[in-house]
């Protein structure tokens, strides 16, 4: 049963081939049996899952089932879940139990999903390897000596290990697409504003966006259709009507114009990774697509711009963790300043502290224009690169990451080496565009991801393109376990 896709589960549940309780029990048992190898879950919500599954079965019996009724999923532990600990993989929020659901959780609950638990991640979503979690690193099901990527590493690993058919993630600079690439899963970051950020612990508000990680594009389309909504509680939420992202999956891609940016195939790209990506592009040519050489000249500025904007916004967002209203508080504070200083010094891990300090520097008196304002200007230049490219092409493709999964500890203590991991994914966030990663081959038995970047609000088209590729290839079916 754990090998079924979400689409297959929906059919099985609706035809009464199995019940949601049976499916849920099966996956819970698998998590209990196997997850000590991966550490992909922080919290398993057995009781809640079984009660949601029972309700789902009742609705299925009555023929009142919504789209995803009875389908088990997991949520990244940055997404607030009513009555269930939401830790952000931080000591700071180790004891935080939100009294409300995030909008996207409400939406998925309304669609009938069953919550199996909360997945591990880099602390406060700051990282690309899942090594900064307070609960220990996640291991890649393809090779447990390797990282699964991050920050949504737990969600990606849980899907790759067939513990759950789909999971939610968040992506601020690549945190859905990069782990999807490293674990042979299909991950999608929607257009900024497509999925409500309300109830997601904020990292960098102008970049954060939630999306699905699943085993194929069709399943990602099912999840996104339920997650996306206009939400008056998120002031940056886009006011667009609900879409069924599965509707266009079967459209032909003949005549599709694929932009191939020369900057994404330069120095630093693993030659084997490049070869797998070029093979995928050839496959698209066979489907009738046309490859168009394009240039995104400001590509190399994406990482520097990101490491001003994201830390600056993080330093403001994370100021709310003060040891007063919720979260970790130090023992015996001697005064209020001591309470703040030690609670935050003890509660935040190294990388989180580093980004807060960088952000504080970038926003401090006299530096705002030189750093934050400058980075926001560069951000517009990066966006314009894409706007110009999309005048000529329908989608843009390239590698998701420069190389396959690396070993735990391989990037050492140098944060900058880790930052370069997101070189191909960050620009999409800065521009606010939708992006995906889909499996396109293996290098030394480690997965390679093909990144597809769509135009604004082009999720449906991007999913269609990915689905058509997955109809003629079987890389997405290759399994780690």
């Amino acid at each position: 049963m754990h090998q079924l896709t979400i689409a297959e589960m929906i059919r099985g549940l609706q035809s009464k081939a199995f019940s949601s309780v049976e499916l849920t029990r099966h996956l819970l048992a698998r998590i209990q049996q196997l997850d000590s190898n991966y550490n992909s879950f922080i919290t398993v919500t057995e009781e809640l899952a079984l009660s949601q599954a029972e309700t789902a079965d009742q609705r299925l019996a009555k023929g009142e089932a919504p789209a995803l009724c009875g389908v088990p999923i997991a949520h990244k532990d940055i997404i607030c879940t009513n009555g269930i600990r939401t830790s952000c993989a931080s000591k700071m929020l180790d004891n935080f139990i939100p009294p409300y659901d995030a909008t996207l959780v409400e939406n998925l609950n309304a669609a009938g999903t069953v919550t199996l638990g909360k997945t591990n991640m880099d602390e406060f979503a700051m990282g690309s390897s899942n090594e900064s979690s307070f609960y220990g690193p996640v291991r890649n099901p393809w090779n447990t000596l390797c990282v699964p990527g991050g920050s949504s590493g737990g969600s990606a690993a849980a899907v790759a290990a067939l513990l759950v058919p789909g999971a939610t993630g968040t992506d601020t600079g690549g945190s859905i697409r990069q782990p999807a690439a490293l674990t042979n899963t299909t991950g999608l970051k929607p257009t900024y504003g497509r999925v409500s950020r309300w109830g997601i612990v904020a990292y960098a508000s102008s970049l954060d966006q939630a999306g699905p990680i699943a085993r194929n594009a069709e399943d990602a389309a099912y999840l996104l259709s339920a997650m996306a909504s206009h939400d008056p509680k998120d002031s940056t939420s886009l006011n667009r009507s609900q879409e069924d992202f599965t509707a266009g999956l079967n459209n032909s891609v003949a005549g599709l114009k694929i932009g191939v940016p020369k900057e994404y195939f330069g120095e630093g790209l693993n030659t084997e990774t490049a070869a797998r990506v070029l093979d995928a592009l050839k496959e698209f040519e066979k489907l009738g697509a046309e490859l168009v050489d394009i240039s995104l000249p400001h590509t190399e500025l994406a990482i520097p711009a990101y490491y001003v904007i994201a830390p600056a916004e993080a330093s403001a967002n994370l100021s709310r963790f003060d040891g007063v209203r919720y979260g970790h508080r130090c023992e015996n504070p001697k005064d209020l300043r001591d309470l703040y200083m030690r609670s935050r010094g003890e509660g935040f891990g190294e990388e989180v502290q580093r980004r807060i300090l960088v952000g504080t520097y970038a926003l401090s008196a006299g530096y705002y224009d030189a750093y934050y304002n400058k980075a926001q200007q560069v951000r517009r230049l990066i966006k314009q690169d894409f706007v110009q490219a999309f005048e000529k092409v329908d989608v843009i493709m390239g590698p998701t990451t420069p190389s396959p999964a690396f070993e735990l500890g391989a990037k050492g203590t140098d944060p900058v080496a880790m930052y370069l991991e997101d070189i191909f994914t960050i620009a999409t966030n800065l521009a606010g565009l939708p992006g995906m990663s889909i499996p396109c081959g293996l290098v030394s038995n480690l997965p390679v991801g093909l990144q597809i970047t769509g135009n604004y609000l082009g999720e449906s088209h991007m999913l269609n393109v990915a689905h058509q590729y997955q109809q003629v290839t079987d890389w997405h079916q290759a399994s780690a376990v």
Partner: protein
Amino acid sequence: MAVDTQTVEKLAELARIAISEETIEEVSDRLGDILQLVDQLQAVNTDGVAPMSHPLDEVQTLRSDAITETDQRQSFLNLAPQSEEGLYLVPKVID
């Protein structure tokens, strides 16, 4: 760009994060590495480029000033490390 330990101490004070004596050199070095990375931005000509804050240049929406939330005071207070009689408790601020 090098960052001296005095600058780190000032930043730590602004950000209200206690940093131990033993780690401050290491923190300074790492911050220096990151600032060196982001200093690439300084070489870019951005004359006349408007800073971008929302990718789709959406503007702030307005809503009517109506009560939509229910009173959940106690459930929020329950999350606090220390509270009493409906108030958050902190160490004495005024003598």
